[in-house]
């Protein structure tokens, strides 16, 4: 069996499973946020009763992160709904925010759910994690089965702790070769998505192995798995190893047992990449699979830059940006918005010295380069959000110039709903 098959077999108490089988799976963690949480709670109460209790108050993790720093009343109300539910249910992990004017005044608040799940130790090898968000596949970086589900499925899990899942076949991606200094994990996954298309992994698991993958740290592995959904994938997996165990030390006290694909496991297909031969790539409008070499786009005029999101707003991503800014020594030519994914990332941006810069922090480098001050951690403008969201595009850009997602920025290009022009952001 493959890693995914083994995880689902254990979670459904079957000795073994094959792709295509529908099985009832015990869920280890259910995550929801402010956009889908209220709907999920509504369904849970409607179906199980107003007085019903969640199946396990320690396994439901509720993370407000999408529409937080806004005056939109419904958005604020939705966070209140989460709070009331968590109080009533004594939910152990609720990363609340009340003071919207100062995120630091909220000790429990984290930020972007997928990064928070990892940083708070909720992602563990061999487990099943379901979330009401397409990028839940992010957690596959920890060698677990993690995928997105809708409100109704989540409401069902909330009451029963079980989900009916079909076992996906696995596509294996073998990435070997030394990672050149000009590549990031984002380049690798965009390379793959460009290869197989936005529906190339539909209903399938994507397993990432090889010497390059083994050399990646946890944040880079998350970037790989995060965009599995952009290829239509059900879940992504990176086998757990010392890097994983080390990351988890001190973050979780829950025991876990990793599983690994058998040597004779059957994969539906194999892709091999020599990473040392790859170049930086971008996704051009309007699809994540519209891959192009970055150097082919060097004459495209950029309108603005946004560095953030679960895909590209982690500490490693800001480090990479800061190094480039420092090396160029110049000021940015266009508005440049920075949105750290979580409070921890924000702290890192302001405190950790960037190697090779003589002790400067990311924040100092960004300031010297003329970027906007790093904003309050949340999903921010990545998916648009209410009109007053920081860095949101509220007017169509009249010019037909294009800019591109580069440093792990927007993972869903269409959501700004721009018609006249294509818009994405490039760092250059």
């Amino acid at each position, binding site marked *: 069996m493959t890693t995914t098959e083994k995880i689902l077999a254990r979670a459904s108490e079957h000795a073994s499973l094959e792709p295509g089988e*529908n*099985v*009832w799976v015990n869920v280890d963690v259910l995550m929801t946020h402010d*956009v*889908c949480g*209220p*709907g999920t*709670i*509504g*369904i849970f109460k*409607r*179906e*199980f*009763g*107003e007085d*019903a*209790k969640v*199946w396990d108050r320690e396994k439901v993790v509720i993370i407000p992160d*999408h*529409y937080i720093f806004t005056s*939109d009343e*419904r958005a604020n109300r*939705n966070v209140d*709904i989460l709070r009331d539910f968590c109080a009533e249910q004594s939910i152990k992990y609720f990363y609340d925010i009340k003071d919207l004017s100062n995120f630091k005044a909220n000790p429990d608040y984290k930020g972007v759910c997928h990064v928070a799940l990892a940083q708070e130790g909720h992602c563990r090898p061999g487990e099943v994690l379901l979330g*009401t968000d*397409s990028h*839940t596949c992010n957690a596959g970086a920890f060698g677990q089965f993690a995928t*997105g*589900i*809708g*409100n*109704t*499925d989540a*409401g*069902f899990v909330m*009451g*029963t*702790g*079980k989900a*009916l*899942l*079909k076992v996906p076949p696995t596509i294996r991606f073998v990435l070997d070769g030394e990672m050149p200094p000009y590549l990031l994990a984002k380049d690798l996954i965009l390379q793959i998505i460009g290869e197989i298309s*936005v*529906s190339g992994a*539909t*209903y399938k698991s994507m397993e990432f192995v090889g010497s390059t993958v083994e050399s990646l740290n946890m944040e880079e592995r998350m970037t790989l798995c995060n965009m599995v*959904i952009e290829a*239509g994938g*059900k879940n992504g997996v990176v086998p757990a190893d010392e890097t994983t165990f080390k990351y988890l030390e001190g973050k979780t006290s829950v025991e876990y047992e990793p599983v690994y694909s058998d040597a004779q496991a059957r994969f539906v297909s194999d892709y091999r990449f020599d990473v040392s031969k790859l170049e930086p790539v971008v996704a051009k409008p309007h*699809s994540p699979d519209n891959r192009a070499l970055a150097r082919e786009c060097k004459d495209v005029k950029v309108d603005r830059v946004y560095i953030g999101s679960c895909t590209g707003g982690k500490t490693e991503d800001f480090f990479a940006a800061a190094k480039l800014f420092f090396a160029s020594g110049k000021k940015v030519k266009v508005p440049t918005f920075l949105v750290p994914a979580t409070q921890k990332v924000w702290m890192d941006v302001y405190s950790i010295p960037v190697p090779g810069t003589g002790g400067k922090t990311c924040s100092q480098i960004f300031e010297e380069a003329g970027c906007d001050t790093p904003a309050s951690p949340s999903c921010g403008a990545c*998916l*648009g*959000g*209410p*009109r007053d969201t920081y860095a949101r595009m509220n007017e169509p850009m009249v010019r037909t110039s294009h800019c591109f997602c580069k440093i792990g920025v927007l993972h*869903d290009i*269409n*959501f700004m*709903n721009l*018609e006249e022009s294509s818009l994405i952001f490039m760092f250059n």
Partner: protein
Amino acid sequence: MATATATALSLTEVAPAVLALVPAVSRAFRHRSRVAPHRRPALKCHQSRPLTAVAAAAAAAAGDSPSTAVFHGECFVVGDNIDTDQIIPAEHLTLVPSKPDEYRKLGSFAFVGLPTAAYPTPFVAPGEEKSRYAVIIGGANFGCGSSREHAPVALGAAGARAVLAESYARIFFRNSVATGEVYPLELADTGAWKECKTGDVVTVDLANCIMINHTSGKQYKLKPIGDAGPVIEAGGIFAYARKTGMIASKSA
């Protein structure tokens, strides 16, 4: 591709919490206008059978039969890779689908994310809450992108009954079945969306696995909806689970 139906589930497998009796559900929020499905003598098309004895018994008890629903009306045509942000833009996700008035509002915003240059005819006319189009015809990878369940909910709230697409993104398909909001039907062949035009009058016949475009005179084969059909007909995964005895019925 149905993942939301019973296969090998018995009552003892379901967590005890589920077996607790629950109050009667309020269906006030489900205001879809139903074109009464008229039943015609049906030629059977292949229906995949439940895999286990338990599921078969449950199906028999529930009176599961091949889906015989028929939908008739104007169709709305879109292309490949229609993502959930085009179906319901992110700014509307503050609306909570389980609240009746917000459910209706979601319907009024169905498909507002489509670029107007490519789609000049709106799915829902300005000022309306519901669409005139009962059937949506699409290409490959329909419903890709974000997992937002608001997407099939918006379509169902607007009055759409079925989507006919060449293929679906996984989460959208699953959400459609779990909520029972729209039938996610698969076309047997590609290219229908290129031949049909928004406003064409169509009949979708599940029993015969066929879509007839009366305006153009062409017919298109559908793949059977299989086990997902009874779940949608029952009204989604919870209703189906109660109907088949998987979880306890609500007391009056």
